[in-house]
């Protein structure tokens, strides 16, 4: 039985000036428990909109999202979020950020501490527990965000460009961490990215979306995530089939971008 079911999802934004934007049109998708899916697409194709609907922050104009047999109607602890940046609570130290979810549920302190101790160790921040989050680097902050999300034991983790604000080297390390966490926890993960390489590395499944209206353009099943669990990600990038897939998807997105540009030029 599929865990996450997205059925004919459409989203139209009516703008105050009378026009409207079809951000998503008839998106259907199923994810099984423990699947890792990455989402690629040109800017403005509705990736964030899709994720916000899955998270329950937006209600779709039509269609539905089902998780474990019930319809998603609002945000809930079963669906964890990791944002690009700015979502940590500066007024709490690292440990309190990680323990936020359990604390809201009323878990006793000793239990919470066990969870945060373990998770901060997993993400390599065991020496920064008492630090203020604004004293950490961008990469460390994202590790706190991952730990905070995992501490809450969600069924699905939704990530909107979680590594988008990091430098290339940190980003590579974090990609390894995401794969490791995925394998260790067995969570269902949907990850939005702008980087084709990242999408290939961090997606058992990869969907490429197309804009106007936002829809699923192509879908791939990829071996690289599985390979990356036990190998150096740089070797995975050199491994068989990676370069071809990358070039194929790059030119696909490139074409879409060109088409958008062409259309806007015509309008202008």
């Amino acid at each position, binding site marked *: 039985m599929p865990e996450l079911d997205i059925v004919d999802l459409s989203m139209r934004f009516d703008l105050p000036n009378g026009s409207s934007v079809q951000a998503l049109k008839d998106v259907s998708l199923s994810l099984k428990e423990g699947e890792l899916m990455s989402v690629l697409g040109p800017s403005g194709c509705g990736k964030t909109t899709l994720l916000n609907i899955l998270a329950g922050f937006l209600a779709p104009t039509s269609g539905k999202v089902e998780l474990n047999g019930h319809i998603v109607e609002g*945000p809930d602890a079963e669906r964890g*979020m990791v*944002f690009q940046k700015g979502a940590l609570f*500066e*007024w709490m130290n690292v440990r309190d950020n990680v323990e936020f979810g359990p604390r*809201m549920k009323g878990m006793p302190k000793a239990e919470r501490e066990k969870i945060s101790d373990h998770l901060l160790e997993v993400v390599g921040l065991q020496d920064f527990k008492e630090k*203020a989050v604004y004293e950490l680097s961008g990469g460390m902050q994202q590790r706190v965000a991952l730990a*905070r999300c995992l501490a809450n034991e969600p069924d699905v983790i939704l990530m909107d460009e979680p590594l988008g604000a990091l430098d290339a080297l940190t980003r590579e390390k974090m990609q390894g961490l995401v794969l490791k966490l995925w394998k260790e926890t067995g969570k269902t993960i949907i990850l939005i990215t702008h980087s084709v390489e990242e999408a290939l590395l961090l997606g058992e499944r990869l969907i490429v979306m197309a804009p106007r209206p936002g829809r699923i353009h192509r879908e791939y099943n990829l071996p690289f995530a599985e390979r990356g669990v036990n190998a150096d990600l740089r070797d995975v990038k050199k491994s068989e089939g990676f370069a071809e897939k990358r070039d194929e998807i790059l030119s696909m997105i490139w074409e879409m971008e060109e088409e958008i540009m062409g259309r806007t030029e015509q309008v202008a």
Partner: protein
Amino acid sequence: MIVLLFYLGLFGGAFFIVYAMRRGLQSRQDFTSLKTVTFGDESAVRADRAASIISVVVIFLIWGAFTGSKIMPIHVPGPFVGETQFTYTLEHPDGSTDDATVFVRVPAFGEEAESFEVEPGTGFAKDVAFAAPAGRSSTILFDKNDEVTRSDGAKIIAINGTAIGPDDTVDTGDGSVSLTGKGAISFTPKQGLQMNPIWLPAPETVVARFFEIASEGYQNFSLWQHLGWSLLRVIAGFVAGAIVGIPLGYAMGLSGWFRGWFDPIVEFMRPVPPLALIPLVIIWFGIWETGKIVLLFLAALWIMTIAARAGVSGVNISKIHAAYSLGASKWQIMRHVIVPNSLPEIFTGARVAMGVCWGTVVAAELVAAQKGAGMMIIAASKFQLTDIVIMGIVLIGIIGYGIDILMRKAENILVPWKGRS
């Protein structure tokens, strides 16, 4: 005008001296000193410590020099003090002339002129003794002892040998002499460049006044009571304003109905300076404590409301979304996300509000009060006690500055994450 020129001179002079001195020992190479583009780079401009110190010293220097301060070695020329004399030449109606001397004693500022006698001398014009008041011109009735007077047709034709007519002026060195329209002598002692203590007393006078009032009090209340009452009013008004304003601001940040309802009121009241409310508040609440605290409450209320509203609106939506996805309830989000997230804004508002309240309380006390810092200076000004006025102004400034420093300290301790997200 002269003071301003002095000030500019010291400003420029100190700059060149300090820079010449520094050129020799330019060894420290911090980050800024290695920057080649500093003009226009705001971060490379730091307050020069030496300039700040010299600036304060210069103010006291000028203050002392222009008030004849006793603790200052150099002064600008002061007013003439002591004994001087000049002669006048009186013409008899029959054409003969005679000289007589006027002896003048000028006391220091603030001292009484003591009358004295001199020998009248010979001739029909007799010598005169005159005790002049300090710092202003006075008319000398020179002919009250002369054998012929102006009513007989005698008139003055020269001062110190210099011919003089009505409305002419002759400089005698220690002052100036002119003839009034009626032919009497008007003597003005030399003023110098120093200030009359009624305009500006010397620094040590102000300090002495401070110690005097600190130990003896002023107008039935001790100095600490005056200042304490002002502070108490500020705190009472501010706390009341915060207690009402912060929840109101939160409500406006969280509910469209509240925002719609109160937006016009807040936006209208915000630009009205609290001082403009004094008359109405006096009419409604009277001039005593209730009126003052209501005024300060109003001064703080809008600032705190707007700060709290801005604090709520300023929350990054990702934080709210993250909190919901972590299973927080609305109340938990309020308590653990919205309130802490708004604290930096509220602190900024509180600093502004405290400053405005402090200024407003002084102004309100100027209008009517029996005690308070503002009352002290307005009461003193009625008796021309300029030293108390200046002492009061300095204390008001110091306390206002102190409040701001305390608020900033509190901010650093309580909201260390301010401006760091």
